[in-house]
């Protein structure tokens, strides 16, 4: 993308805008399609869906697939657990990542080198499932809400992303505050954090989506504690009921046929996708505003 030479700046800008809008519109269409496809199938009668060929409009409109999902007990309770873990998990995650990031962004910090290596390595090594399970058991985390939150509190990825953002902030800001006698925590809390809103919003989104979408931990650690199972886990169970085909032993073909005849897993799968995505879509604009519009550092610099 070499800089153009003979362009009149304004005309060049206009051409650029048009081309850009065309490209973005193409992206829009291409990326909107899968979601609309899912939505259409979720609203289409499952017996008709089998015939294929649904694109973005339902052929035989129905809410039956959603009704099928919502008749299961435990969804509402699961929803509350999911919301709780999302909120608590995100807050814990943000707190740890931003503090660690600040500490690591301080070039004068003694243990900086050690801390960053220590953290980064955690991204690439894992002891495996069995030791982790035994650790959780020994910490008495099994069968509790905290098993969702505590293990994920420290995430090196998030720390580094936030740190790289902080590195971009003028160091002079801190220096002057320091001369005014502010301690390190005050500098972090009063000066650095407010400037980091865009990256904090991004990390909050990552954390929240991660918490919201995970179900395997619920299954693995809280399967026998229905009071703490999450929405995603309950939905997985619903989905399973329609997917018996492959897993069971096929003793009685008639039973199998009866089971499969009721509702096709395709439709349920799609409806579930919509059910779990909608809350994210609702919350999204509140976070989005922090990272789609630019901000002016100059205002705070002085």
């Amino acid at each position: 993308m070499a800089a153009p030479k003979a362009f009149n700046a304004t005309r060049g800008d206009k051409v650029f805008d048009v081309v850009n809008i065309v490209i973005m519109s193409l992206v829009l269409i291409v990326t909107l399609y899968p979601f609309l496809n899912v939505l259409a199938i979720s609203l289409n009668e499952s017996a008709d869906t089998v015939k294929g060929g649904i694109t973005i409009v339902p052929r035989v409109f129905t809410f039956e697939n959603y009704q099928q999902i919502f008749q299961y007990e435990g969804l509402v309770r699961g929803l509350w657990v999911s919301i709780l873990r999302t909120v608590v998990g995100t807050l814990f995650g943000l707190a740890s990542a931003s503090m660690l990031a600040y500490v690591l962004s301080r070039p004068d910090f003694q243990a900086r080198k050690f801390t960053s290596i220590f953290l980064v390595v955690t991204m690439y090594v894992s002891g495996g499932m069995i030791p982790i399970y035994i650790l959780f058991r020994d910490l008495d985390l099994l069968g509790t809400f905290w098993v969702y939150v505590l293990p994920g509190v420290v995430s090196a990825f998030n720390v580094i992303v936030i740190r790289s953002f902080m590195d971009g902030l003028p160091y002079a800001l801190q220096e002057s505050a320091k001369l005014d006698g502010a301690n390190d925590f005050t500098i972090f809390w009063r000066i650095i954090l407010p400037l980091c809103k865009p990256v904090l919003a991004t990390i909050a989104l990552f954390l929240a989506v991660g918490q919201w979408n995970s179900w395997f931990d619920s299954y693995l650690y809280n399967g026998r504690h229905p009071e703490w199972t999450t929405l995603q886990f309950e939905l997985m169970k619903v989905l399973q009921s329609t997917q018996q085909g492959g897993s069971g032993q096929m003793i009685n073909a008639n039973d199998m046929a009866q089971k499969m005849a009721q509702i096709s897993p395709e439709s349920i799968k799609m409806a579930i996708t919509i059910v779990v995505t909608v809350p994210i879509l609702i919350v999204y604009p509140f976070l989005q505003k922090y990272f789609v519009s630019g901000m002016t550092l100059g205002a705070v610099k002085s």
Partner: protein
Amino acid sequence: METLTPGGTSNKSPGAPAAEADVGKRFKKQSFWRTALQQKYLYFMSLPFIIWAFVFSYLPLWGWTMAFQDFKPAKPFLDQKWVGFKHFVELFSDDRFYLALRNTLAMSVMSLVVGFIVPIIFAVLLNELRGMMFKRFVQTVSYLPHFVSWVVVAGIVTKMLSTQGGAINDLLVGLHIINEPIQFMAKGNWFWYIVTASDVWKEMGWNTIIYLAAITGIDQEQYEAARVDGANRYRQMWHITLPGIRTTISVLFIMAIGHLMQIGFEKQFLLGNNLVQEYSQVLELYALQYGLQMNRFSYGTAISIFNSVVSVILLFTVNGIFKRVSKESIM
């Protein structure tokens, strides 16, 4: 390495390195403990989490001992039979392992290149959109495919590439580029490209978010100044936006290099079929099929140790190179 833009200041404060040097000099004179006391807040803010990470990430590493045993789940640790490097020897003498390694690296390198560049371009272009509503709408829509599961995406891709009424083949035949529909899904040598393209499609918007956040961190005054100097849009993108997010790009790139071996297996599994097996088998599926699924915990652990060791070596190497060349690193 600072890229100075016409009339503006660079995003990465020129003060930082200088300050670092100053600070370093000053501290040398002080004793370790005195500095530590001065930095007590920094310790308060990091030490608890270090311990945390130690408990949840490092303690379970005792599990790595399994790779050197013939591990049986029911037996206590001391009763396990120790076998040295037996499982590693077996791993390194299995042809399928090398095949899986080749495919893993091929696909991860491809997605590293394409999957890295596309979101950056997209973020920069998105940033240039003038209408705020349109900008937010495009951004929102583009991240939606992230929430559509691979099962669904694989279904859509397979249908689009179908020889019977698939959109791509219809288009190519319609434009007379080809005479016969191509059996895309049956050709092993197409597989890596299909996976990479699908991945970009699904994750492009999501991966853009992080760059958008970085772009908002760029001082708007720089753009003002550039416009006053008569810099056109390309110049602004090239000389302000890209340098402004360079740190983020480098940092993500370094971390991604470390993850070259860990690309999951879901998309390969769902997009693949029996005809393209030789191109779709990846390490993590291999570890699952030949390890955990058969209760060969030791073998599975050996694979994951291999993965971790290679990842960490790659990480430190690339981190070192970046440190030397561009002063940007994650450690």
